[in-house]
């Protein structure tokens, strides 16, 4: 028997329609932006709304990415994810208020430094909380969706209530650091500085995540684990450890999202996480559970649509996202970029 292959290697041709099917979700964002322009008419209002929609989308993406990965990797659905948003916001804003002198100084450097410190504190606390949450709340109910949903909802309630115990039941109002207040004017459109910062942070994070997923071994393990965890273990990788790492990172990202959302709204409440989770769930469902790219596109669509509709017909803003979800599920019942699960 010979070793040399007697067959000719051929590449299975991907039909054009399939390639298009993969690309369409990516096209939805520019299409929505153009439809928005047509519906709004006024280019400067449109630009303001677009930036604001992108900022909102980026923040939702930051929160959603961890949730969708945790699901993809271990089939764990964490309804308590919202608690990390609230805790992150309260920790971060506490730091911001404690360093009021730096936040109030008209120096961009000091202002960014205080925001950075707030973010770091929030991420450390929520990351640690995520570690504990995984051990105490999630670990005992692996593989049982019904119990997972019930228990993580319980965890959400308890953490929200503890926030009220620690920080008091009232919402906290505050203002952004000095140099992040106000707006630029660009082609007649007012672009809030903070929103541009939020877009930059979100984009940077997305690019960084893509690099990790494409270029590092741990990223490859996570991607492979989402697809076929059993095989990753059979190769010799301890998926449960990878999962804890992802859970902690996802919780820390939710904390980051919480600080950013708090700075965006300039008010924080214990239930802000729970309220944001509704948008986050919509995003992970339309993106395809387990898909980070899907969550990114979904978050931008939700952010943009919410802002456009809020301008055109304020009362329909939240309902518009339900409509978007309905439309996308009619088109693709598994979401835009469903993760191909082995078996």
């Amino acid at each position, binding site marked *: 028997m010979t070793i040399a292959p007697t067959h000719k290697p051929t590449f299975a041709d991907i039909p054009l329609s399939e390639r298009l099917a993969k690309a369409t979700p990516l096209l939805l964002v520019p299409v929505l932006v153009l439809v928005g322009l047509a519906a709004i008419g006024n280019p400067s209002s449109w630009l303001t709304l677009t930036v604001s929609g992108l900022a909102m989308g980026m923040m939702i993406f930051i929160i959603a990415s961890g949730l969708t990965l945790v699901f993809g990797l271990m089939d764990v659905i964490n309804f308590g994810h919202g608690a990390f948003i609230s805790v992150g916001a309260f920790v971060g804003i506490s730091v911001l208020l404690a360093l009021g002198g730096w936040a109030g100084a008209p120096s961009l450097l000091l202002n960014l430094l205080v925001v950075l410190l707030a973010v770091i504190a929030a991420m450390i606390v929520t990351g640690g909380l995520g570690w504990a949450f995984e051990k105490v709340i999630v670990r005992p109910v692996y593989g049982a969706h019904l119990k997972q949903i019930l228990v993580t909802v319980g965890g959400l309630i308890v953490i929200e209530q503890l926030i*009220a115990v620690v920080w008091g039941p009232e919402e906290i109002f505050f203002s952004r650091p000095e140099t992040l207040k106000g707006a630029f004017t660009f082609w007649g459109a007012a672009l809030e500085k903070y929103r541009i910062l939020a877009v930059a942070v979100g984009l940077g994070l997305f690019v960084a995540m893509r690099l990790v997923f494409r270029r590092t071994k741990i990223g490859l393990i996570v991607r492979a684990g989402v697809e076929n965890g059993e095989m990753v273990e059979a190769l010799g990788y301890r998926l449960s450890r990878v999962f804890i790492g992802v859970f902690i990172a996802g919780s820390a990202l939710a904390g980051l999202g919480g600080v950013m959302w708090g700075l965006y709204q300039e008010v924080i409440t214990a239930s802000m996480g729970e309220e944001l989770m509704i948008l986050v769930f919509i995003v992970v469902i339309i993106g395809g559970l387990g898909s980070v790219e899907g969550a990114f596109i979904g978050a931008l669509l939700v952010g943009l649509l919410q802002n456009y509709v809020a301008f055109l017909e304020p*009362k329909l803003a*939240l309902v518009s996202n339900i409509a978007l979800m309905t439309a996308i599920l009619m088109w693709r*019942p598994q979401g835009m970029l469903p993760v191909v699960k082995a078996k």
Partner: protein
Amino acid sequence: MLVKLLSGDKPRSLALTLILLAILVALALAPFLFPGVRSLETAARICIFIVLVASYDLLLGYTGIVSFAHTMFFGLGAYGVALASIHMGRGYDALLTGTVLGALAAALLALVIAMFSLRVRAIFFAMITLAVASAVAVLVSQMSGLTGGEDGLNYMIPRELTPAFRLGELFGVRINGKVLNYYLVFFASLGLFLLMLRVVNSPFGRVLKAIRENDFRAESIGYNVVWYRTIATCLSAATAAVAGSLFAIWLRYVGPDTTLSFEIMLDILLMVVIGGMGTMYGAVIGATIFVLAQNYLQTLMGAASEATGGIPLLPQLLDPDRWLLWLGILFILSVYFFPTGIVGRLRAGR
């Protein structure tokens, strides 16, 4: 005859039988045993929540689906009665129309949600119901022209069901329209509960249980799993709506806080889990304990909070507003340690 009324689903535990009988007698004779406005209020609330929780159990316990939209369906029934009473004028026809339309709307909405989510995977349902229910709650509070917004709606119901209608005295208790209203609520709740008991013990209910145990296997035997789950969802939604209608008839008021809030959704979850999922009788026990605790325990917490005034943190933890904190902890512990709830415990300890 009695066994037939219970659809052959006996409590299967002496202690459970006694407790259920005690609750039944207490509720049946509530106006005479516990006279007073507050206790009648509590008794009616227990009746209505037994139906609401049992209808949720039909979904969670018998079908294994988690929904966060049960209050939405409850609210649909309540607003149905309110809107019908306002627009058709005071009358029984308005109550009936509102109830029927509310139940139909709930079933229809449940059908649409189920078609979108159950077709893919059951956990979609939990997330989608959460999103839709919150959107509806926002919508109801925004569309104040129709729904009264945050303030809710007050309306008139037939005079025979209000305190203004007096009948005389019986066993030293003044019988008025409110007592008649209570018996309307009581008998309607009893009937609905027995009806649900019938459903879960019918061939249909047995298929649901088979799906809950192993949906893959049920599918391979040839049952259309999605279809069965969808029907269960619609049935559960319609029953919740009727419970909402009863609530609206009893209160003569509807508002987002009393019918649509996420807090009530959590209450329902807790009642089901504490009572015992997938047992129906768990709904009776869970609702009774919970409503009693809610009405009387918060007072106790307030007292405890004041008594511990000097100690740091404890007063905040015991503040009546932190009632939900303890419920949450209780909830997590019950899911871990008493997954079969009180009914499961009583049956096991027979």
